[in-house]
Structure formats: C-alpha cells, structure tokens
C-alpha cells in the first residue's frame, strides 16, 4: 500500500511522559513523524493535545490509531488524510495563543 500524509490529532491527560508514550508507539511501528505540535488545553493544564503530521500507509495508520488509544492517558486519537487539517489546526492554535 502507498504511503501518504495523515494528520493525527490526540487529546490526552497532560501527564509527564505522555509525549514519549505517543512517540514510542509511532517509533515502534516505524511511522515517520514529519511535524509535531504539542500543547496544553486552554484553561486546563491537566489536559493536553498533540497534532502530528505522519507519513505512512492507510492500513498502518488505522492500526496505530488503535494502539495509541490503548495508552491509558489518551482520550481520543483521530486522523484524516493529508496535511490540510494539520495546517488548519496549527493556525487555529496559534491564533488562540496570540489572543
């Protein structure tokens, strides 16, 4: 299957090591991370989000999503094909930061 870009959006409890846990799952499956933005949730530092631009196959993307959702801290892991959503979400996050 052909590899393509996916935007992965993760909502998780903002515990120490959460980024390591997420990246570990991707590394183990040898999924390439092209870009990564991590942030605390506005008004609730106990929750965080991560946006990742990944390069992998659709099949592996689906499998990795379920493996990420197994992480105890992860509330939700959703993905969509392409980088449009990644760029839009990053832009939205930047606007919120500026405001």
């Amino acid at each position, binding site marked *: 299957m052909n590899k393509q870009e996916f935007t992965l959006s993760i909502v*998780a409890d903002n515990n120490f*090591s959460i980024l390591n846990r997420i990246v*570990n799952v991707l590394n*183990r499956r040898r999924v390439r991370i092209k870009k990564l933005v991590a942030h605390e949730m506005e008004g609730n530092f106990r929750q965080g989000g991560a946006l990742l631009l990944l390069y992998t196959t659709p099949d592996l993307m*689906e*499998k990795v999503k*379920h493996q990420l*959702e*197994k992480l*105890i801290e992860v509330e939700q892991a959703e993905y969509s094909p392409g980088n449009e959503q990644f760029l839009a979400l990053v832009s939205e996050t930047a606007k919120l930061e500026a405001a």
Partner: protein
Amino acid sequence: MDALLTSNKEPGTAVKQISGSNALLNCLLAEGVDTLFGYPGGAIMPVYDALYHYSDRLRHILVRHEQGAVHAAQGYARVSGKVGVALATSGPGAMNLVTGLADALIDSTPIVCITGQVFAHLLGTDAFQETDVVNTTIPVTKWNVQVTEAKDIPAAVAKAFYIARTGRPGPVLIDITKNAQNELTPEIRYEPCTGVRTYRPKPALPIASVEEAAALINQAKRPYVLAGQGILLAGATDELKSFAEKTGIPVACTLLGLGAIPQDHPNYVGYLGMHGNYGPNVNTNECDVLIAVGMRFDDRVTGNVSKYARQARVIHIDIDKAEINKIIKAEIGIHADAREALAALTQRCDAQTHPDWMASFRALNDLEYEKVVKKEIEDTTTLKMAEVIHQLSSLTGGEAVIVTDVGQHQMVTSRYYRYQNPRTNITSGGAGTMGFALPAAIGAKVAAPNQQVVAVIGDGGYQMTIQELGTIMQDNIPVKILVLNNQFLGMVRQWQQLFHGKRYSFTELDNPDFIKIAEAYRIRARKVTAQADLTAALLEMLESPSSYFLEVVVEKEENVFPMVPAGAGVSEIILEIPKDKT
C-alpha cells in the same frame, strides 16, 4: 473517577501522620495483597524499614535477583488471578525488572512493580543508582507513574491496581522517590479506584456483531474455534464449553490458552502453533469459519500469514480493540469480554453437530500418533522428553500446576501434558523468556500452596535463574523442579540442524553437577539416566513433602515434531525431519 482519598477521622479531630512507606503498605493491604516478592537496596530502604513492622500481615519473599521477583509475581498472578507484587530498588534493581515487565505485558499478566527512586531533588542529576525508570519502562508496561510526594501514594497505588487487573490485564510500575517514602502524610481511608476518565477497560457488548457472527456460525459447515488465554482471563471456561457443546464446534488452544477447555473434552482437538498438533494446524486451512477468542494471532500460531486461513471467514473476539485486524483481517470483529461474547453467541447459535469435520481432526491426529507420538512414548529405547512429560501427566492426572521455561521442553510439555484445569499452565509465551520457570514456580506455589507445582525446565534456562534455589531454601517453598537435561540449548540446536547446515554454533553446554548444586541448597535431589528408573523417580518427586530436584538426562539431539518450518504455512507442517537434514 480516580481513587477518592478521605480522612478516617471525624471532622475536627487531628489526622494522624504516617510515612509515605507506611501509607504504601497500608494501601497494599487494602488492595488484598498478602505477598510481596522483592529485593532491598538503598532507594527502597524506607519501605523495607516499614515492612519490618508488617511481617504479620504481609509475607515478603526475598528473591536472589530482581528478575526472580518479577517472574515470581507473574507466577503468583497467573495461578491466583490476583495482582502479583514485586519490590525493587532504583537503578540496576529496577532495570532487572524490565525482562519480566515485557513478559507480563505480552502475556497479559496483572502485576504491580514498586521501585524506589533517588530523592526528588536528585532526579536527572546522574545520582548514585539513578536511572530513568519511567521512560525506560514505558514500552514494557501497561502504565507507569513516578510519585515524588507522599500524599500522592494512595491514589497512585489505587490506579495502578485498577489498571493492572482490568481490561486486558498487564504490568504497572510505580516509581517512588526516597523523600516520598520518608515524608509524613495524613493517614487516609483507602478507597480503591473504580475508573479512570480516559480508560475504558470493558467495552459494551456489540449485539449487532454478535448476531451477525451467530448467523455466520449457523451456516458454517466446518467452523473452528481457536481458544486463547483471553478465555482464562475472562473466566469464560464454562461459557466456552457450553458454546462448543451446543454448536458441536471443534476447539483448539494456543500455548497460553491450554487449560481453557479440559483436554479430555470431546470437542478439544489439540494444541495450535509451530510445534502444535497436526490436525489443528492443517485444518486451520480447511475450516470455513474461524472463530478466534481471546487470542492475538501470534506468528508462532499463524506461520506465514499470507498462507493462513485464506479460505476462512474470520470472527475475532477480543477485549483489546487493537488486536482485532492487527494481523488477520476479521470479517466480524467483536470487541468484547470473552465471557459475555461467548454467552451471547451460545444463546443465538443453533444446536448442531459436525461429525465429519470432527472426524477429520481425529484422522490427522491419528497420523501424528503413528509418525511422532508412538515413537516418542511407546517404541523408545532411550529417554525422551515426551516420555517424561507423558508419565508426569499420567501420574498427576493432568491436575498439577505446570510451570515451563522456554525451548524444546516447553513445546514437548505443551504437547504431552493433559491439562485439565484453568490456570494450571504457566509459561512464558510471547516474550519467550528463558529463566522464567524457576522463579515463576515459586510464585505459583505461594499462590496455591495446596496444589502440586512442578517446574519443567531445560538445562539452559535453569542456569539463567538458578540462584532462586536460595529463595526456595530460605522460605521452604515445596516446588518440584524437573530439569530435562540434553546438554544443549535444544531448540536453537534444532534450528541449526534444520536451517543452518547442522553448524552447532555455541549451543552445546558443559553443565555443572546439578545434583550437588541442589543439595548445597538443602534440596533433595536425584538424577535419572535410565528409562527403568523414570517412574519411580517421578513418584518420589511428586510424593516429596518438601522441594525436590529431579534431573532427567534425555536424548542429546532429539528434535521436536511436528513443526511448521520458518516461512511455511500452517498446513505445510512436517511430521518428521526431512531426509536431507538428518
């Protein structure tokens, strides 16, 4: 909701202050822990100091290496169904737990490991015996956490036990800095954790998928159940039997699933996998509907995936959603607890029989009997591993707890021991950890003192954790140790013979006098080299009220068959050594 922490004092009264270490031990008692397997050291000393005053309530078993502690906790958990607990110090102590954590993760074993850590202000400074335990153990734990303040200990313990035992069980590690162990904290009423906001361990039964699966099963001509450890973990052995009996479907077990259905049950057709029985492997590629329950299609079960059950419509029941479609595409995935799913399926499936299909397993297994089994347990002139295990099975009626290590003896035991009960087959499956059996048998015997516990080990694996004989001696743990000594790392040697031109590269072992070693640890010992002495020696071992070491010197270059060769499909399983490989 995470654990609630409430004072046990009336409003207005002073709250008693206790140390973090005492709080930890109180929490363990509240979780129903009765035994700890551990090894002290600098960074866990406050906990050990507190433990001195809890010896009437908490049994501590001093192992000889931290790997022994974690495997013993695994053995305890696998037999009892409770959470096993191991204690270790920081740095090398914690690192020595890693193999056992990895083993427990892949084999879904509920354990909680507690490690001491350097003072919080020293974290990240390369202090003496400081290692980054949390980040090191992320890939080998279901969850882990570092606690740096005493007040956070009860909530961490509550969450750890909840996560370890719910959903797909697994290992959890709590790393506690030394200052947190020493600090005073209010004594609180411990309340177990009943939920974690982001963690959904028990999915709702997907009724629509169950109905779809039932319809598929009702139409099937050659349906086939693959039973994994998920059946045992879910306590679904009765549900599996009811399902098989009503539907007339043959059931085969994976390595860890052995014991999910009694081996004398008429629907049981054998053991799956690389060295499994002939019929179950061949018929995987003949069935029309494959019903996989609580198993994860390990590569030792599937062989070459591209040649695996291509003709079958697959139903996969598993509590771990990530397992469904991970290796084998399921037409119907049922993300559910195995017990609930099997009960619901049984209700919806028609009562049927499949006599011809069932007979095909018998015919294939008869062929295996003629080609393999008969030669190993009947027409023998030398001591063979199979004969030893066959006799052990007969003498114990398949009722003993059998703890195996990894290698040829493990495969032979899986093939020849007739497990009758759940939670009696304790082995290292996914990780294949040599050195597992001796300490795991200690944990198993502590969990089930009234059951016969026999550790069956090869001469290679035995020497990986042989120091645990000291634990057996000091705590008078009446484990029976049966070493099948072929003076080789047998399984590696078998592969060298079959796939590497018989170049036995560093697999032959020059062994010590195992009898003297056992006797040095005050363990009764006997060595058998002749077939004629085998039965009497096994009986002597089984009847011994104390620990017993029995060494059986078996044929040196024996191979385990049947075998699915590397890269082959399951139906390409071979019954004997190819002529060009002898």
